[in-house]
């Protein structure tokens, strides 16, 4: 299909001066606005900085960082900048200590959010009159609702299929003939696998574009998915702490993800020195939201590693800075089947089961299309019973506890004591055999 190149909002095509002018004004307003959030007010006071000190975009570097730990320390709503009555929606990110962190949206925030999602969907070819199947989970996760309202804004009709039940997904794809598909890249692989197993002919589907996101994926995966599903794929990026999907997204030309610069100031920093790296060089993305009401965000350390692209123009006509795919993490967070998981969560879960911290190792691979997650747990005397029923119960209990801490299923593999390699210093808790970007 020849994909038309059209632009949703003229804000995507401003000159550098115009963009920076908006950014400075909005940054100054944001700094002023967060002065009524005690967390920010205290930090700003310590540094001795206020709205009047923001004179250029570069002045963002005088502001303090916000981290996931800050969000947890201010759980549940300490970072709220409006009265709770003004909040129209809550979302949350998967918890790292069993508890999620909450984010909030006012009416204006939701309006802005759906508009930003509409921008990247439109850039990727979504049009009024299209039908879109959303195979993202709905719920606290920002992906489902985020894409839903963006598509509604464009005027595409929506099949809110949600995640899982692959057989039913195909019933919907075949019977309602959607042109657009929204899911995680690994779920797209699962759909391809199922299609081949069940010998479902490609001609029975009407898919044209797949909007894939919420987990890192690779260029190899793109080629595979585009070949097998015969669709154009568009990558998009976002994280709930800052907004959700809508921070950036690809247009039909695949030249990197266009950053919605009028709403986000994206820095790329060396994760060690926290100094900016030149465009084209890998660094950690640090994002400031420029026009959010309920939960503004100043210099959020995403821990996502990527690089910025500014040396070439995109043929689509958008003038915004672009960013590469996410190449990795600057911390030990794992993304498994679209869910954020920290090895420390697995450790806490295991600790919950007995009074000992067993030695463990997370092994990830992707034998077919979906991630397989295994935790090898070294047997300890406190765990062992000569009764098989108790051993099975132990295994089940470990698996259930890990699920309650991480939100995903890990298969527990009980192994011989001392069989997991010991490391001096920081233990390597993860072996990730999933295909990676070269």
């Amino acid at each position: 299909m020849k994909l038309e190149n059209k632009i949703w909002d003229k804000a995507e095509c401003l000159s550098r001066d115009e963009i920076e002018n908006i950014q400075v004004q909005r940054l100054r307003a944001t700094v002023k606005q967060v002065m009524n959030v005690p967390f920010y007010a205290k930090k700003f006071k310590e540094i001795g900085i206020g709205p009047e000190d923001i004179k250029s975009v570069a002045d963002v570097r005088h502001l303090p960082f916000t981290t996931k730990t800050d969000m947890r320390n201010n759980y549940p709503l300490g970072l709220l900048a409006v009265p709770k009555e003004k909040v129209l929606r809550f979302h949350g990110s998967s918890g790292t200590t069993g508890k999620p962190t909450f984010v909030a949206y006012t009416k204006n925030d939701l309006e802005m959010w759906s508009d930003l999602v509409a921008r990247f969907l439109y850039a990727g070819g979504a049009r009024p009159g299209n039908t879109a199947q959303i195979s993202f989970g709905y719920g606290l996760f920002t992906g489902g609702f985020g894409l839903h309202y963006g598509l509604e804004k464009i005027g595409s009709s929506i099949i809110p299929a949600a995640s899982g039940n692959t057989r039913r997904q195909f019933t919907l794809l075949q019977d309602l003939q959607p042109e657009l598909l929204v899911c995680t890249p690994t779920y797209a692989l699962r759909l391809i696998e199922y299609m081949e197993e069940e010998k479902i002919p490609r001609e029975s589907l009407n898919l044209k574009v797949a909007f894939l996101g919420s987990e890192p994926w690779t260029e190899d995966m793109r080629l595979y998915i585009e070949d097998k599903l015969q669709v154009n794929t568009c990558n998009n990026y976002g994280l709930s702490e800052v907004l959700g999907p809508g921070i950036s997204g690809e247009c039909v030309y695949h030249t990197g993800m266009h950053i919605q610069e009028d709403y986000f100031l994206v820095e790329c920093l060396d994760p060690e020195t926290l100094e900016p790296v030149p465009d084209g060089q890998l660094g950690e993305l640090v994002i400031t939201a420029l026009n959010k009401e309920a939960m503004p965000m100043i210099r959020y350390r995403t821990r996502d590693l990527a690089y910025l692209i500014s040396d070439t123009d995109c043929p689509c006509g958008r003038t915004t800075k672009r960013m590469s795919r996410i190449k990795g993490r600057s911390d030990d967070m794992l993304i498994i089947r679209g869910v954020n998981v920290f090895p420390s969560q697995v450790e806490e879960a295991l600790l919950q089961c007995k009074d000992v911290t067993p030695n463990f190792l997370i092994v990830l691979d992707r034998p077919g299309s979906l991630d397989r997650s295994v935790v090898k747990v070294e047997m300890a005397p406190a765990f062992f019973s000569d009764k098989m029923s108790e051993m099975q119960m132990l295994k089940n209990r470990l698996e259930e506890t890990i699920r309650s801490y991480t939100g995903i299923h890990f298969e527990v593999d009980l192994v011989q004591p001392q069989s997991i390699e010991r490391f001096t210093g920081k233990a390597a808790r993860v072996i990730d055999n999933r295909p990676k970007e070269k």
Partner: protein
Amino acid sequence: METVKQLSLFLENKPGHVYSICKALGDAGINIYTLTLADTAQFGILRLIVEDAESSKALLEKEGFIVNIADVLAVRIDNQPGRLAQVAEILNKEGINVEYVYAFANRHIFLYRVDNTEKAYQKLISNGFCVLSSHELFNTNK
């Protein structure tokens, strides 16, 4: 109450583990009277009857294995139809759950691991079954 000490070892499903256990015991001059292996796809439990359970446990732990000791009942059951059923019936009537059972080759001695060892013992002997002590078990074998 007469019981026999049984060793249980945790085994990851990998080749060579049973060998290294038998070898370690053999090298130390410890005779294995019988053994049974219960396994799942991921791991197994090896149960052993040896003469000196405590010192064998220490030896195997030194080799890096996780070892438990449990009391099991060594019941002599005649080689006749219906006798095993009779034992099962006694235990069943008392609500005693058999976790597992295995046998001594050629000797008509069965090892029972139950959830209430004391009660099972009393009921079996009061029904005329011979439940052996370690001493009887190991010395009649020689």
